[in-house]
């Protein structure tokens, strides 16, 4: 949806849901996988749904059920799970300038995943103030709902589904990189930004290829920032 269409939207929550639809291509297959793994680790369907509803943080949920099932000390399980999520601390301050004074905003941060942050960071600045909370609620609510529903589905019928449609679970997650690409292209406004974003992208890719997925995101972003500051801007501009 274009920026102009956003400005004219009379149902911002619906626009938010529409904007979040590409996320479902990745959320649902991954949530189904989580549900399946959670059941295999000894949690029942109800417990799996509670974990997805309350923790709601993709990779760290896999780690949580894996460590708990493996008999790791619970304090270590909690600490490692939170450590993976530490990157989330920079998300809310980045979108704070576009959030209104509504008292519900802090609670709505429960839905601020990597993907919703990326979407909100690109869309909120182009939206009238009064539409922002509706848009965010629609987008984050759909993503959250799909994650919980996918987890439930995976816990109940994940094994059968993955055997029946293996191609679907392989193809649909490509919606995620495709969406991130679309969100990042408009940020390539100078050589400095192109290089910094490229360094972050390829560093994360390399780290993840060598099985360092958990540290890939913060480390790659730090390398991108180093590249950004290493390149002198033209005309003295900092960004």
């Amino acid at each position: 949806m274009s920026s102009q269409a956003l400005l004219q939207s009379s149902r911002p929550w619906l626009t938010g849901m529409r904007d979040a639809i590409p996320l479902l291509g990745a959320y649902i297959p991954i949530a189904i996988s989580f549900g399946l793994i959670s059941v295999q680790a000894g949690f029942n369907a109800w417990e799996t749904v509670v974990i997805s509803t309350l923790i709601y943080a993709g990779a760290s949920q896999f780690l949580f059920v894996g460590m708990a099932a493996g008999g790791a000390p619970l304090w270590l399980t909690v600490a490692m799970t939170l450590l993976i999520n530490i990157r989330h601390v920079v998300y809310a301050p980045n979108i704070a300038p576009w959030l209104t004074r509504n008292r519900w905003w802090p609670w709505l941060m429960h839905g601020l995943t990597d993907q919703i942050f990326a979407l909100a960071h690109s869309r909120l600045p182009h939206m009238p103030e009064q539409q922002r909370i509706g848009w965010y609620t629609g987008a984050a609510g759909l993503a959250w709902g799909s994650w919980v529903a996918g987890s439930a589905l995976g816990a109940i019928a994940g094994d059968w589904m993955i055997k029946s449609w293996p191609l679907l679970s392989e193809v649909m997650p490509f919606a995620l990189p495709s969406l991130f690409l679309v969100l990042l292209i408009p940020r390539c406004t100078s050589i400095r930004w192109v290089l910094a974003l490229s360094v972050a992208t390829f560093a994360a890719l390399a780290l993840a290829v060598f099985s360092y997925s958990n540290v890939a995101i913060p480390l790659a972003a730090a390398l991108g920032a180093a590249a950004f500051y290493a390149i002198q801007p033209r005309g003295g501009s900092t960004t």
Partner: protein
Amino acid sequence: MSGELWVAVLVTALGTLAMRMLPLLWMRKRLRQQANSDVDALPQWLGILGPLMIAAVLGVSLIPQQPDTTSWSATLLGCIVTFGVWYRSRSLGWPVAAGVATFGMVIVVGSML
């Protein structure tokens, strides 16, 4: 699930929520304090880190589920088509749909060869 495990789930859930919520409260306070100041409320490094985090998440998500030649080719072509459709449409949905369709077609064709 044991009582101890339930507590671990709740502590993890509250910790994750705190990591998402508390920085917003801190930033709101900073924005209020600096409303009448010339200094930017958002520290420059934090504003730069936002897009770079998205780029890093992109990098991690580029790795296919079955990392073989076909999947990497599908990833490359899917990205090219996504960019091409975005360049023409400047929209969100169509580039993603076209990228996924291309990725899927390459996977199907690759599996038939």
